[in-house]
């Protein structure tokens, strides 16, 4: 005798009262008919809600982005502004943290249920464009969408020719530091364009003076942004076309550099860095006050300010400024299966090009990509944004050329770099072996 399935446990004796007699066949048939019809109606009655629905002239567009509560507030204001001007268009907004955003978007797209408008960044744009989830916007350029206003970022949303997305904002890579912690440690604030050695020496001072409570530097060994800048400073880059732009030796030297600084206690240890490696602004070392610097983007200063009571400051990544660049911070795309593509295209044009929309968005995603709009609004932005603007104005003349968007497979390679770097940081693998394994796996990812 095999126990086959969990049965309700029976205490006491199993004997029961005699069974009631079953009803007559006619009544049974009637009961069966009723049960079946209820089941069928229930099955047919389930309808999925997805995409936009329109009834009596009103259109509802679904819109999806990642970010924090600050970004949600600003975006809602911009969307409300749009509805004011176009009363027949309303929105169903959805937002969440960055972690898991693309998983959800991919699943929604697979179910033909993706939102009409969604936020995307250059990490995933190539993949979503090549998989035809993002709509080709060329048909609307000139009429509903304006791209000639976008200055340097005009072609940023183009993948292999056609335009798939509009740049929502622009930013640069930026080292965010804790001004209060620097003051407490009695060290000067970071400088734009200082060298990596100067940076690590500065970080070590902070770690020592705080007795190990505040680490001078976040561990950037698994961060593709920092790695890319470091490579560019040597004339290389993360990618060369659709291949990796560096060698195994480069990667090993990179891991060794950080290992040395971790041992010297300038850089946060592996366990502390691991918490902050999620990309979530509120978990960064500067936000949790466990570290004095974090490698982020210039626009994240606003969200960061809300996450910490200390005063944050902004500087460029260490090393020559010519390796850093202005980049499209984020894009807006329209879903290729959207039933209201034209309206959606109009919405993203509004969010990108309209001065009032950019004012409502408060430059939290980054500065307005249109130089004209930026000039118009400069004085209207809040103080943190003014800090970002003055930082960018200082460094932009020295910045280098914006690289093209990464090839498909980049999101996997990004995660692979993080996992490999953590293996080295936790002492699970030697840097040489880890670098070799990374190169092999990355090559197979890019090939597939």
């Amino acid at each position, binding site marked *: *005798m*095999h*126990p086959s399935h*969990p*049965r309700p*446990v*029976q*205490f006491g004796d*199993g004997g029961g009262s005699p069974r009631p007699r*079953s009803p007559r*066949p006619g009544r*049974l*048939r009637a*009961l*069966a008919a009723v*049960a*079946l019809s209820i*089941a069928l109606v*229930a*099955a047919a009655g389930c309808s999925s809600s997805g995409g936009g629905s329109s009834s009596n002239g009103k259109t509802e567009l679904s819109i999806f982005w990642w970010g924090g509560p600050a970004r949600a507030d600003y975006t809602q204001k911009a969307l409300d502004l749009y509805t004011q001007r176009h009363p027949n268009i309303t929105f169903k907004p959805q937002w969440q943290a960055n*972690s*898991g955003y*693309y*998983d959800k978007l*991919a*699943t929604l*797209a*697979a179910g033909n249920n993706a939102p009409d408008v969604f936020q995307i960044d250059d990490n995933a744009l190539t*993949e979503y464009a090549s*998989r*035809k*989830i993002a709509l080709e916007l060329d048909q609307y350029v000139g009429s509903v969408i304006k791209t000639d206003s976008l200055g340097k970022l005009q072609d940023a949303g183009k993948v292999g020719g056609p335009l798939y997305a509009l740049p929502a904002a622009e930013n640069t890579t930026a080292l965010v530091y804790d001004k209060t912690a620097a003051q407490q440690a009695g060290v000067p604030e970071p400088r734009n364009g200082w060298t990596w050695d100067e940076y690590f020496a500065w970080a070590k001072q902070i770690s020592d003076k705080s007795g190990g409570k505040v680490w001078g530097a976040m561990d950037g060994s698994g961060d593709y942004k920092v790695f890319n800048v470091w490579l560019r400073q040597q004339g290389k880059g993360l990618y060369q076309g659709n291949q990796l732009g560096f060698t195994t030796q480069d990667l090993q030297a990179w891991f060794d550099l950080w290992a040395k600084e971790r041992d010297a206690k300038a850089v946060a240890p*592996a*366990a*502390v860095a*691991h*918490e902050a490696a*999620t990309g979530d602004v509120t978990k960064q070392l500067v936000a949790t006050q466990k570290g004095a610097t974090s490698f982020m983007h210039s626009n994240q200063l606003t969200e960061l300010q809300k996450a910490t009571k200390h005063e944050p400051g902004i500087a460029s990544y260490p090393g020559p400024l010519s390796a850093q660049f202005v980049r499209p911070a984020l894009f807006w795309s329209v879903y290729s299966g959207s039933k209201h593509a034209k309206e959606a295209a109009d919405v993203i044009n509004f969010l990108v090009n309209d001065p009032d929309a950019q004012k409502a968005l408060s430059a939290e995603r980054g500065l307005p990509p249109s130089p004209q709009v930026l000039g118009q609004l400069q004085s209207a932005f809040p103080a943190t944004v003014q800090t970002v603007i003055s930082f960018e104005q200082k460094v932009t003349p020295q910045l280098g050329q914006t690289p093209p968007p990464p090839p498909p497979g980049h*999101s*996997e390679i990004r*995660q692979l770099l*993080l*996992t490999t770097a*953590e*293996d080295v*940081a*936790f002492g*699970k693998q030697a840097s040489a072996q880890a670098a070799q*394994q990374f190169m092999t*796996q990355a090559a*197979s990812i890019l090939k597939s």
Partner: protein
Amino acid sequence: MALNTTAPPEGTRLAAPAPLPTRLGGGRAGRLESIAGYVFLSPWLLGLLGITALPTLYSLYLSFTDYDLLQPPHWVGLDNYVRMFTADPQYRHAVTVTVVYALVAVPLKLATALAVALLLDRARRGIGLYRSLFYVPSLLGGSVAIAILWQTLFGASGAVNAILAWFGITGRSWVNDPSTALGTLVVLGMWQFGAPMVVFLAGLKQIPRELYEAAAIDGAGRIRKFRHVTVPLLSPVIFFNLVLETIHGFQGFTGAFIISNGRGGPADSTLLYTLYLYKQGFSFFHMGYASAMAWVFLVAIGLLTAVLFWSGRLWVHYSDDGARR
């Protein structure tokens, strides 16, 4: 699961009971009853076919394709399976992590369940309350909310470290250290011992008290009684719980997903098989590969369950063996 503990003495046989009158299989009334039965069964049957059986077969098809969720799958034959076993070090790592997790978590959970069941197997005022309290964690334990709580609890500044600080121990960040992250998952699994505990309690209640008394007369102490009365008579229940909890243990996902923020934890230390499957399928757009992983998983768990059943012949004692087998 009533155990018939008094076997008829040898040499006597009870008269075979008269066959029960049955309406099934006999004439029109019987057929109508069958049809009615199927009609009432139909909602569940449709669900089984539509939501379980057909998609499972479809995933078998997908396992031989390259499918990125958005474009139609195209056939690649055994490529996915070959790659899984030869060219994917993370796959082997995920298998190792899952096996280690199951090997550690399942026995610990069952042992805890049995220990607490033994403690609660007495009639005392308020014993019902204690049983309910111990059962509650297993109701909530598998949820996302508890997993999020767990992540905070075992973090660097979580409650666990606060308690350790009372004893002067500085705890580390348990969820962010690759040597302890899997341990937090094991503890999470152990904490949900309530469900197997209730089943053990039921099994314990079926053991007749006379056997304990007889053993006491023979001079058996607590441990002897446990070894020679409780365990053999409880073995069907232990077997049942073991099979169920092993399968459950291998399928663990929610805890690992939440605690590692969907990534498989510090240095892949919490990369359970199901989590890796999810990453391959949904994060990296390799749904064909993920389907292949799912089928390998099914076969592996099926084999493991078969091994458990086979081993059951050696150590599971069904007291009505003599009469039935």
